[in-house]
């Protein structure tokens, strides 16, 4: 299930609010769609237009909770698989996170306890997910506001072990690395040193803002220079197969988005 490092280029997260924009923006080589927001049997017209042009579309799941104590839910896996099939996607992506526990839903991506014991559970979860999916799976590092007291590994070490033991691909969100650096004092460059960049499937990049010393990774602003620097730093170590801009609300003009894609293209070719 090792993802072949398919060349994706520069992309943007497809959102229903941005559908016409994404269709007409120059320089969109690929897109990602939140898997939970589509039905494979009734794809949005805009995604069909993009697919007819040959633009790759990657289903990006946010509710599988592969870092949870329960094995991954087979219905959620079936949905991801159906999305990948309907869109002829090269891969699907999800997060190293838990989103529910027993009867409680977080409604959000929460960091897992990074212990060897939790790792062994999550390795099993990842293997089960891989068996259910028709295409490779890549997992993303999350933006955390807190850590677990029992953490034994950094997120980068945890992901490295997970990649080594399961062959899962990596989706590295440099904005999330930056968020963890600001909020938790975790060195983003040290994380890049540890992460197995040879298994990189693609990269996420996004804007946010600081308030009271806390970085809020809101995906609602232009990419801050520090985050773009991290993208350049990553790209100098390993050329990313793809880099995707996430913008989730307060949508700007087409001109702003085009400029952001240009900034991404320039930074990710930095050597």
């Amino acid at each position, binding site marked *: 299930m090792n993802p072949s490092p398919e060349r994706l280029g520069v992309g943007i997260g497809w959102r*229903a609010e941005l559908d016409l924009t994404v269709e007409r923006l120059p320089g969109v080589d690929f897109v990602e769609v939140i898997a*939970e927001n589509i039905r494979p049997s009734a794809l*949005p017209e805009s995604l069909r237009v993009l697919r007819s042009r040959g633009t790759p579309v990657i289903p990006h799941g946010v509710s599988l909770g592969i870092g949870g104590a329960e094995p991954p*839910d087979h*219905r959620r896996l079936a949905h991801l698989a159906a999305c990948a099939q309907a869109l002829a996607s090269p891969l699907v992506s999800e997060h190293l996170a838990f989103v529910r526990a027993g009867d409680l839903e977080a409604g959000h991506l929460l960091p897992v306890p990074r212990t060897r*014991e939790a790792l062994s559970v999550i390795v099993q979860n990842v293997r089960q997910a891989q068996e259910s999916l028709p295409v490779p799976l890549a997992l993303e590092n999350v933006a955390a506001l807190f850590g677990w007291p029992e953490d034994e590994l950094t997120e980068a070490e945890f992901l490295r072990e997970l990649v080594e033991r399961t062959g899962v691909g990596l989706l590295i969100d440099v904005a999330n690395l930056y968020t963890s650096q600001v909020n938790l004092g975790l060195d983003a460059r040290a994380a890049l040193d540890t992460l197995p960049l040879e298994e990189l499937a693609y990269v996420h990049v996004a804007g946010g803002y600081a308030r009271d010393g806390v970085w809020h990774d809101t*995906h609602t602003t232009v990419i801050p220079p520090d985050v773009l620097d991290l993208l350049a730093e990553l790209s100098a170590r390993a050329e990313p197969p793809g880099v995707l801009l996430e913008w989730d609300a307060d949508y700007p003009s087409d001109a702003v988005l085009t400029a952001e894609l240009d900034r991404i293209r320039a930074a990710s070719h930095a050597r």
Partner: protein
Amino acid sequence: MPDDHAVDEPRGPDDRALDERRAPDDRVTEERPAPDEHAADQRRQRLADAQRGLLAALVAGGPLPDGFDPVRLRIEAAGLIAKRRGLVARSAPDLVIRLGPRFAALFTEYAERRPKPPGGSLGDAKAFADWLGLPLNPPPAGRWARFLRRRPIS
């Protein structure tokens, strides 16, 4: 606040109950002998307890588990409510209009000790409307809204 995607229920009925009925043997690869399966189940149980305890503190007013930074967990809990509020506002814009400037404070009051109910954000909106004692008007029809979005602006 971390990553701001709409983490929401997938469409279709919730099948968590179905999953819980599966035998534990389904959940581990067959290469391991039985004693290891028992150990694996115990590891799952400990992880389940730890995650349940933390989530109860974050979304259901449960006690703070030992060792966590209480300030960070308060920020996280407030962020989770803000995210729910945003998704409810999108699922039920009618409620936002009717409540006006009181929407945010009322939603926070509702959500502080009430975890998100089943049924995704529309389920949350319905539960909020019930708590308020207001009937919930249906959201605009999806097909018509999509058609309008695809019309050229000028």
